[in-house]
C-alpha cells in the first residue's frame, strides 16, 4: 500500500498569524525618539578656582522670564527675530566692538578659519513654560546650524547634515561650536 502523505490543514494558519500580528501591533511602538540633544555642565567642585571671566562682548545674554517674555542683550526680544539676532552676533560681520572677537584657528580639513569666540548665555525663570524654553533652545540651535550650513557649503559644497564623513563633521563642529551655556539656577523662592 502506497504511503499517503498526510495533509495538514493549514486553514487556521492565517488566523494564528493574524493573532500574532495584532498582538505585536498593540504592544509595540514605532516612534523613534527625537529631540534636542544637549550636554549638561559637570557639577561644580566647590574647591575648584572660579573659571576665568568671559569678556562681556563675547557673551550673548538671553533671558526668559516667568511670563515667557524674552530679554535679549538687555532689550525686549522676539522669538521670531531671535535666530537672525543670534546669527548676526556670532558672525559679527561688521567687526562691531561690542560683538564677539573672531580669531584665526588652524583646523584639520578646513585650514585657517575664523572661529567666533561668542558664547550664548541662556537663563530662564522657574516659571518659564517648557514650551517657550524649547522654542528658545530651538532658535539658538537653528542659528548655529545655519552658520554650520554656510561653512559646510563654502568648504565642501553640501549642507552640514548631508556630510557623511565624521572627520569633516568634527571639523565643522570645531569651527562653529555649539556654545550655549546655561546659567546656574538661582534659587529665589525656594522649592
Amino acid at each position, binding site marked *: 500500500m502506497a504511503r499517503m502523505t498526510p495533509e495538514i490543514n493549514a*486553514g487556521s494558519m492565517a488566523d494564528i*498569524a493574524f493573532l500574532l500580528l495584532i498582538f505585536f501591533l498593540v504592544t509595540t511602538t514605532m516612534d523613534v525618539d*527625537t529631540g534636542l540633544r544637549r550636554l*549638561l555642565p559637570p557639577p561644580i567642585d566647590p574647591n575648584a578656582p572660579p573659571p576665568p571671566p568671559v569678556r562681556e562682548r563675547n557673551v550673548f545674554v538671553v533671558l526668559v522670564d516667568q511670563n515667557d517674555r524674552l530679554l535679549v542683550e538687555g532689550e525686549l526680544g522676539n522669538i521670531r527675530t531671535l535666530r537672525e539676532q543670534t546669527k548676526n552676533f556670532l558672525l559679527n560681520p561688521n567687526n562691531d566692538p561690542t560683538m564677539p572677537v573672531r580669531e584665526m584657528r588652524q583646523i584639520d580639513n578646513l585650514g585657517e578659519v575664523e572661529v567666533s569666540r561668542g558664547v550664548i548665555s541662556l537663563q530662564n525663570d522657574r516659571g518659564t513654560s517648557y514650551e517657550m524654553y524649547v*522654542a528658545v533652545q530651538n532658535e539658538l540651535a537653528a542659528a548655529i546650524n545655519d552658520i554650520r550650513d554656510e561653512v559646510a557649503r563654502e568648504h565642501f559644497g553640501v549642507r552640514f547634515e548631508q556630510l557623511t564623513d565624521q572627520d569633516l563633521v568634527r571639523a565643522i563642529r570645531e569651527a562653529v561650536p555649539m556654545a550655549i551655556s546655561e546659567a546656574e539656577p538661582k534659587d529665589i523662592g525656594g522649592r
Partner: protein
Amino acid sequence: MIKGRFKKEGGERSQKINTASLPDIIFMLLFFFMVTTTMRETTLFVRNTLPSATEIQKLERKSLVSFIYIGPPMQSNIFGTEPRIQLNDAFANLNEIASFVEAERQARPEAERPLMITSMKIDRETKMGIVTDVKQELRLVNALNINYSTVRGEVRVQ
C-alpha cells in the same frame, strides 16, 4: 443570443479563492512589524504632549536611552494637576532620580555606560522649575548627556 453570451457556464456555484498563500502574507507583515517596532515599556501616568521643534536629532540606539517623564498626572482628580515626575512605572520624587540613573547604568554593559542618554519627555505646559531641579539632579550623578524630547514641527509660541 446576448443572454447566452453573458451567462455563466457552470451555473451558480460560488468560486473558491485559493487562500494557501494568505498565512505567508500575514507572516510577512508580522515580521515587518517585529523588526521595525520596539516594545512599549512603560504605562504613562502623566500627560505627555511634547513640544515641537525644527532642529531635532534622532536618538540612535534605543538601548542606550533611559526616559524621564514629567507632566501633570492623567488622573487629576486623584493626584492633582501639579506636574509630577514618572520613572519607569511609578511616580517619583526628585531624590529618586539618582538611584534611577544608577540602576539604569547597572543594567547596561560597562563599555556602553559613557554613551548613555537621558531623554526627558516633558509636557509642553510644564513650568521650568521642576525641569531645572531634575537637570540639577542629573548633573550631580554625572548623567550629562540629555535630550529634550520633541516632535518635528514648526515652533509655535503664543
